[in-house]
């Protein structure tokens, strides 16, 4: 049944390859991006153990950030409780490793599984709500879980915390900064790859469709509620899994660290880092975590300037939201275009920006 509609000219603006389609080109782009991220992972090497420590932080925050990518970036739901789920994962890791004596390799998936029922219940109660009400509800749940779950003797065994040993695999000890850094990097790259894979699937596209237009999604046979719930639960599990690594990174778990108001504030920080990185691509969380952790380390060096860090990152969060809602991913895309079109000027812009940032960092480190 071919139609009589004529074929008008194709619009001039050529759009890049659709990102929710698993084409060869898309797969190649993913591999290139993962390679670039892995190369970025080599940056801490010359800085020694301090560099690895910062690298571990960035990698763990990127894992937690990916949970925001799924729930907010893909499904368009705002959740202000990723750190509470991370706390749940961390507490479970402490309980399983120290309490039961199981190895980390079992504790981490168990931590992810443990967040499943909790995020399912919270999600069932709240994902139907519209954005604003959802934000209030998740904030509220975060407080309530902090006050109940993390104080519950059945969970905590009446203890105020556990020491978490570093994972071992045969002869390899992941207690050293380098080894644990490499492990975190490998895991976060894997999670980025998985999160990108979700985009190019039935459920991932349903999430993006629901974010765009709920009515049309329903009209096309998508169960909006179930899709949102799936995003919420997957995001919770991702945060729980990251929480296991957080527990090892911190070396100990105290449930009090995941209560109000620290939980809310850190959750908000996680959301803002993902926005700065780029909310709808999986590597956005990676970029955001790097920029956040590096900045906080630079500023933390100078204790007096630490509040500046809060103001500075808030300032950038607002600037990004107002002018570049695509985050650093969008900025890097624009920069790449610029370099391609006007190589000399573009490279000069990049160099000046890098030099300026290094200069500021140097001043702050010297001032401390």
């Amino acid at each position, binding site marked *: 049944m071919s139609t009589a509609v004529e074929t008008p000219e194709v619009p001039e603006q050529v759009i890049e390859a659709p990102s929710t389609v698993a084409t060869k080109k898309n797969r190649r782009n993913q591999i290139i991006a993962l390679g670039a991220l892995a190369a970025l992972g080599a940056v801490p090497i010359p800085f020694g153990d301090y560099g690895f420590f910062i690298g571990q932080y960035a990698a763990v925050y990127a894992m937690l950030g990916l949970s925001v990518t799924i729930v907010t970036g893909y499904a368009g739901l705002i959740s202000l409780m990723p750190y509470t789920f991370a706390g749940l994962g961390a507490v479970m890791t402490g309980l399983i490793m120290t309490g039961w004596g199981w190895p980390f390799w079992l504790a981490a998936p168990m931590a992810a599984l443990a967040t499943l029922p909790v995020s399912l219940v919270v999600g069932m109660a709240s994902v139907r709500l519209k954005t604003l009400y959802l934000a209030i509800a998740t904030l509220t749940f975060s407080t309530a879980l902090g006050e109940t779950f993390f104080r519950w003797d059945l969970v905590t065994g009446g203890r105020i915390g556990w020491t978490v040993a570093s994972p071992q695999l045969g002869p390899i000890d992941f207690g050293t900064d380098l080894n644990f850094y490499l492990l975190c990097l490998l895991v976060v790259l894997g999670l980025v790859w998985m999160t990108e894979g979700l985009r190019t699937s039935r459920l991932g596209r349903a999430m993006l469709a629901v974010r765009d237009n709920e009515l049309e999604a329903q009209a096309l046979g998508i169960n909006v509620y179930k899709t949102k719930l799936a995003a919420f639960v997957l995001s919770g599990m991702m945060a729980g899994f990251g929480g296991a690594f957080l527990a090892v990174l911190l070396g100990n778990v105290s449930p009090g660290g995941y209560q109000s108001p620290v939980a809310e*504030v850190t959750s908000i920080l996680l959301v803002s880092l993902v926005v700065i990185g780029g909310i709808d691509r999986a590597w956005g969380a990676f970029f955001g975590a790097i920029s956040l952790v590096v900045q906080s380390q630079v500023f933390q060096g100078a204790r007096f300037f630490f509040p500046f860090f809060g103001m500075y990152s808030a300032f950038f969060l607002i600037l990004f939201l107002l002018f570049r809602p695509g985050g650093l991913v969008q900025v890097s895309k624009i920069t790449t275009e610029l370099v391609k079109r006007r190589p000399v000027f573009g490279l000069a812009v990049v160099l000046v920006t890098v030099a300026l940032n290094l200069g500021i960092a140097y001043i702050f480190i010297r001032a401390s």
Partner: protein
Amino acid sequence: MTLAINPIEVASFGISAGAVFGLLALGLVLIYRTTGVMNFGHWAIGLVAVVSYAWLTGEGMLPQAALPICLLLAMGAGVAAYRLVFKRIARSNQIIVILVAVGIAQFYSSLAALVLGFRPFTRLPPWLPMATLEVAGMRLRMSDVYTIGVGLAIAVGFFFWFRVSRSGQALRAVAQNREAAVLAGIDDVRYSSLAWAIGSGLAALALLIIMPHSAGQQGGLITTFDLTPLGTLLIPAFGAALVGGLVNLPMALVGGVFFGLTREFLVLAPAPWSELRTSVAAILIVVLLLLRTERFFATRQELEALEA
């Protein structure tokens, strides 16, 4: 001090806490109705006032003299947030609006930390009388009595101003229908700024009532990066605002008192419950939220969107 608990004494604690929640909620609702922003940074704007209060009184200023200056500063902070940032965002994209409000919260709370510097504690001297009043065998704190009085006075003054004065009526018009108000020649930016100023002033007043009077005769204490307002006040304030469906001003005050009384009477409850004050508030909020959603079929608004 007697351990016998008099329900009227507890009620006085509850109503005074409720007045504070109510004032916070009133500010939230006023700002939301006029500019469509649910201000997740409300507490941080109030914190600006608390920190300047700590600084001014630390420099030797009389607390009562410092108070109005601090309220004005918080109002300025709120108006600046509106004029520089929120005015520029489309209110239809709620995710962006919420994230920006979160950014504003981070900005002002960091600013507050910067002003305080790195001291473990900064004292906040009381500005309300701290005496205890004995009436018919009951011990009532004067600060509670004043708090309730301030709450009542603001409620009455507010509604009188809203109904009678020109600016109050213009503000109400903007809140009810911005487009129509603009067509009628009302400067919506001016009145939105006014709403932000009043709302931020109310947040500041609420925090300045509670924080300097929380530790007995000494007044109160504040630490750097003090998140108490976020943790303990914002959630009941949201709850109170939700009682009025985020748009009803008198119901927001009523909701505040409801949450205040619930919290104080829970303290009397047996052991597990008294520990769960915030959780009970949280559960109430979730119930309120679920009552508001039509679960299976489209709401009127969605229908209109469908037909439009």
